[in-house]
């Protein structure tokens, strides 16, 4: 059963691609292998086959043999719609495309990248180009939610999911877009309860994505730009620190400035750090003693006390 259908769809694609004019249904039923049964059965089969090919992204043109007469409608697939149209690719471009396709570890992009490469190699005859290793460069941004999010965004379906921030709660969202920032994916969309655009880190979604309703359930606001909603992208304040550090220690902090020697045991250095200054300083344990700014010194001391 399934073999027959597969065969018929391939035969139909080939016939519609080969024809230089529109083929009428009658011609299709009599010429293309696989259409059997009553007129009604064939009709139903063909309607389904058209939908199936469209679902595969194959565009079928509908037109008539002769525009002057009110003719029966016919069907064809244009080569220009169907065929790979990226033009010729140089070996260097091929290697960029290959790297770009293999960068991804999330399932959706990994498999679409592999398929894209199959097409590119089918175009360029480059399946055996030399490569070492399987992936030279990859992104660890695996999220099984990527596929449903992609579907929701591109077909404009409302979704709901459970999200962890300080508490765990269910969110209902009109998903507008995804963006990657520093290797992690963020989803932007209208929070249907709060009636405003919110940004969610995909890694903090703790449930599956449920689709709530049909396609085209919302409209993307005019001029929507996901970047406008990313608060974390705005520059974080940098603070300048002075500290005593043990001779030969705190290598990564020393790279920022020249050390001033105090005695056989200690040097003094100045450096700037962002919002993760606590971790960066505590990383070196007793090999660093913060001297200024004073409020940060006090904060480090009380943090250390809390750890005892």
């Amino acid at each position, binding site marked *: 059963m399934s073999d027959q259908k*597969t065969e018929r769809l*391939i035969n139909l*694609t*080939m016939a519609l691609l*080969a024809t230089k004019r529109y083929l009428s249904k009658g011609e299709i039923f009599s010429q293309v*292998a696989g259409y059997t049964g009553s007129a009604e059965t064939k009709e139903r089969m063909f309607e389904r086959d058209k939908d199936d090919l469209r*679902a*595969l992204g194959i565009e079928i043109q509908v037109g008539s043999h002769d525009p002057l007469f009110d003719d029966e409608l016919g069907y064809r697939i244009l080569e220009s*719609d*169907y*065929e*790979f149209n990226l033009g010729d690719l140089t070996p260097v471009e091929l290697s960029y495309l290959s790297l*770009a*396709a293999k960068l991804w570890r999330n399932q*959706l*992009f990994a498999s*679409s*990248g592999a*398929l894209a490469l*199959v097409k*590119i*190699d*089918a175009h*360029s*005859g480059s*399946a055996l180009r030399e490569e*070492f*290793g399987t992936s*030279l*460069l*990859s992104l660890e941004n695996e999220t099984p939610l990527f596929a449903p999010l*992609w579907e929701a965004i*591109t077909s404009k379906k409302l979704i709901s999911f459970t999200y962890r921030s*300080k508490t765990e709660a269910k969110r209902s969202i009109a998903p507008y*877009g*995804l*963006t990657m*920032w520093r*290797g992690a994916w963020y989803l932007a969309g209208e929070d249907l309860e709060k009636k405003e655009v919110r940004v969610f880190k995909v890694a903090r979604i703790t449930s599956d994505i449920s689709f709530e309703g049909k396609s085209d359930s919302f409209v*993307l606001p005019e001029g*929507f730009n*996901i*970047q406008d909603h990313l608060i974390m*992208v705005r520059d974080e304040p940098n603070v300048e620190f002075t500290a005593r550090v043990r001779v030969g220690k705190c*290598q*990564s902090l020393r790279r920022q400035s020249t050390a001033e020697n105090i005695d056989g045991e200690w040097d003094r250095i100045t450096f700037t750090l962002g919002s993760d200054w*606590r*971790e*960066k300083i*505590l*990383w*070196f*344990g007793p090999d660093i*003693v913060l001297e200024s700014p004073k409020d940060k*010194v006090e904060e480090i*001391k009380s943090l*250390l*006390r809390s*750890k*005892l």
Partner: protein
Amino acid sequence: MKETALDRVERALNLIPFISSNPGLSITQIAERFGSTPTQISKDLTLLHMCGLPGYTHLELLDIDYEDPEFIQVTDAQVLDQPRSLTQLESLTLVLGLQLLAELAKDPQERESIIALQSRLSSMIGDEVKNSITITDGLLETPIVKEIQVAISQSRVITFTYDSASSDTINSRRVFPLEILFKDGIGYLQAANPETLEIRTFRVDRIIEMTVGEVDAEIHSRLSTPTHSEIEIEIEMGEDGLFFLEKHNEIVTSYQEVAGNFHITLAVSSPDWIKRVIASWPSRIKVVKPLDLAEVIEEIARQTLDNYS
């Protein structure tokens, strides 16, 4: 998941042009590229053999030579000699990938040619999709990545000075680079020691100076699965355990959350590193197991605090 007739049609329509332009591949090689099995590809070819253009005599049928599983070729592809156009998703995958590569390219000319290729592909994607899935600032600046990439692709050993965060020392390393992995925008290099074949991970932004050395094409065959000796660690922490899980997910083996308190089990191969991670976490982490680590962590906090009195 069971394959549908449509999945098969899609693969079949890609198989013919692929084999047609790349004659002489084995059935196994083809299966690998399609993420399928040799048995399935054989079935596909048998089925395709029966397909063709109206008329369906040997002149119109697809002509595929697949008797020798080591040498597959298509002698007549009929109208299927050209691959299908890229889908929106496939184009987007490449466009975003190229954008990251452009971020990494150091040479301005190279960056330009990557961006030119990217805009060629980009024109094939609908505006709405293009604006919905983007990269804002993909990777932290790591110019050395490109040089390492070249070394990996040529199977060359590299030598560099490394600022080791776990031991807080700078020293010279000679390694065989295997892969660069980005996590939270930071590049990590997986590399093997050419003598012991032990595999280590280095942060690319801590590599200070690097030179590319000789080719060692045989090393891949000498590398077997790395054997890590790992220690198991159990910790307890408050609600920011969530951020710990996110930041260090690769070492987490299991966790439990009870009323905002996290109990997390870790498998770690570097004791120096985990000691610093726990001691520098901006809230208290209680080490449940092993006990000697708990003592070490407390001792670090005590000594550090003593410096201030």
